[in-house]
């Protein structure tokens, strides 16, 4: 039986009401993606887990789910990176430093960082996938002694599409991080790998049972990358993915983000491959 007293308390506050978030930094990263640094009222911390998302509100234009791309170890603010793909994100792109947005969350299950303690990390980011992964990479960098080696594979369609360029250059310089980049289509200034991100995986040197592979990218990418990772003998539950869906409420009610019986906004967006295997056919990211 539900405790009536507790229920009455819950009936007073609405989980639909956003907090006030002030944009303290806003800049274009490429011609399609904009970076926002947001400070909550009273400079309170968002207290999120790497991999969680928030619902960003612009009054009059409803709200949209956006991944947090800063680590919880970055205190006093949090970061978002948004690609201009629709009417809401177009409106969001017009906002500048000093503007106010509504924030609800954080929502969902983030990357299982506690389970990852002591393991080597293989991070595979395709395109925008680096956005949620940046929260994990920064977290690992801030808590480096909790984790083993970190390898990052980064892929984009073209060299202009790379996000966080300054930061990734820093990562490359660090001895504890091994980084490898590739583009689908090179330009004359590109000196790195050319080809899909899957081509980088056979060459990585890992101890599969001691490695967590974390994969985030466009829906089409997963099945191919996962197939390569399975060839490397990484156990299913150590292959971690984060799925994009159309979250509207974040509370496991509105139904938009559902994959079969699972509400991605509550049970995800982070899943492991063994969870993905349980889906019967509605999960696009799962190998057929």
């Amino acid at each position, binding site marked *: 039986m*539900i405790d009536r007293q507790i*229920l009455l308390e*819950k*009936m*007073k*506050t*609405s*989980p*639909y*009401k*956003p907090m*006030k978030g002030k944009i303290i930094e806003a800049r274009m990263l490429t011609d399609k993606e904009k970076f926002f640094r947001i400070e909550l009222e009273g400079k309170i911390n968002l207290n999120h887990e790497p991999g969680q998302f928030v619902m960003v509100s612009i*009054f*009059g*234009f*409803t*709200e*949209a789910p956006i991944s947090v791309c800063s680590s919880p170890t970055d205190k006093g603010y949090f970061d978002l990176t948004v*690609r201009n*793909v*629709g009417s*809401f*994100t177009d409106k969001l792109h017009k906002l500048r430093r000093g503007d*106010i947005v*509504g924030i609800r969350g954080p929502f969902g299950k983030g990357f299982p960082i506690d389970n990852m303690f002591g393991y080597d990390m293989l991070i595979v980011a395709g395109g925008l996938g680096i956005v949620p992964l940046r929260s994990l990479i920064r977290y690992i960098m801030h808590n480096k002694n909790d984790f083993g080696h970190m390898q990052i594979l980064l892929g984009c369609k073209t060299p202009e599409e790379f996000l966080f360029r300054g930061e990734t250059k820093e990562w490359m310089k660090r001895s504890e991080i091994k980084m490898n980049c590739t583009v689908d289509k090179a330009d004359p200034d590109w000196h790195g790998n050319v080809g899909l991100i899957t081509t980088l995986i056979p060459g990585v040197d890992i101890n599969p049972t001691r490695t967590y592979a974390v994969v985030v990218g*466009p*829906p089409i990418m997963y099945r191919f990358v996962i197939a390569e990772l399975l060839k490397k003998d990484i156990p299913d539950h150590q292959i971690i993915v984060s799925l*994009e*869906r*159309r979250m*509207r*409420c974040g*509370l*496991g*009610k*509105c*139904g*938009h*983000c*559902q*994959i*079969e*019986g699972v509400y991605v906004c509550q049970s995800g967006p982070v899943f492991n491959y063994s969870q993905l295997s349980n889906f*019967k*056919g*509605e999960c*696009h990211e799962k190998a057929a």
Partner: protein
Amino acid sequence: MKYAVIKKENLNKWLEYLRKKARLYAPRKKENLFIFRPVKDVNEVILKYIPTILPPKKYYYPQKEKLFRFKIKPFKTSKAIKAFEEYILFAVHTCDIAGIQCMDVVFREGPEDPNYLNRKDKMTIIGIECLEYCDKYANCTSMGNHVPRGGYDLMMIDIGEKFILHINSGKGEKLIYGLAYIREANHKDMLELERVREAKKKVFKEEFGASLTKIYETFDKHFDSEVWKDVGKRCVACGNCTAVCPTCYCFDIMDEMDLSFNQGLRHRVWNSCQMDDFAKVAGGEDFRKGRDGRQRHRYYRKFKYPVDKFNRYFCTGCGRCTRTCMAQINLVETINSLLAEEGELR
């Protein structure tokens, strides 16, 4: 006093009394169909009706619910609903009461939904037990909802000259307490109730070709069934089935600005998983493309997913989805086709 009786001739008197106690909603005729409406004239209340066009969910889960009021400059949010009012749902079928129980489970699951909980808190349900089928579309017997299974404050059962009232809560008891024309049921009334229930067993027969457990197992095995492809070919994606379903609760969020363009209201509005863009993301990927997949999803949300999650079937057997479907997609036929495919149709 657990059972009371009221003579039919006193029913209108009682309705007048109820109308003064709280806002009273009851079924009445609309052309050749029925709808729940606030009672203005007690003579319009109808007790024998086929399930209303919309279930009473429109009162506890409104089509357009105010979530909060907002102001852009300066950024501010405030309550949109100051106080929820007491209301009575009168003559609710047992199938629709089962629907309310399903919604309870959904909205009480954390994170709890305060709008629903507040409306539910102010609700009093007076049910009515059906003694014969409303029409050929109902499948309440297979779902076990042709008989009362709790979830109400009072339940009315027609025993000829009188109604037996089963009192199921203190809230219900208060609505009959101290009324001269409602008395405690005696032994003879109870025998009459038994006779009515016994007669009912001859009328209500399971509509599906197998038990619910078998149906659940069949759903588990037949995700890629031809049945879904067939249903998908006929479906016109109008979303009628989900709008009229007492256990469909998917919604969308919508903002409405007032003329100042500086303040407005955020609403939650009913949405349907049958709509083309329901699972489409801004990047263009559609995660449930095709009417077959969307219809399958609707069925699985009645017979599989909620059973896994809440140990409860989310079909109440009201038959509304079949009654309203423009493409004659029939729930009982769909389930029986699946069972036939499995070789379980008895």
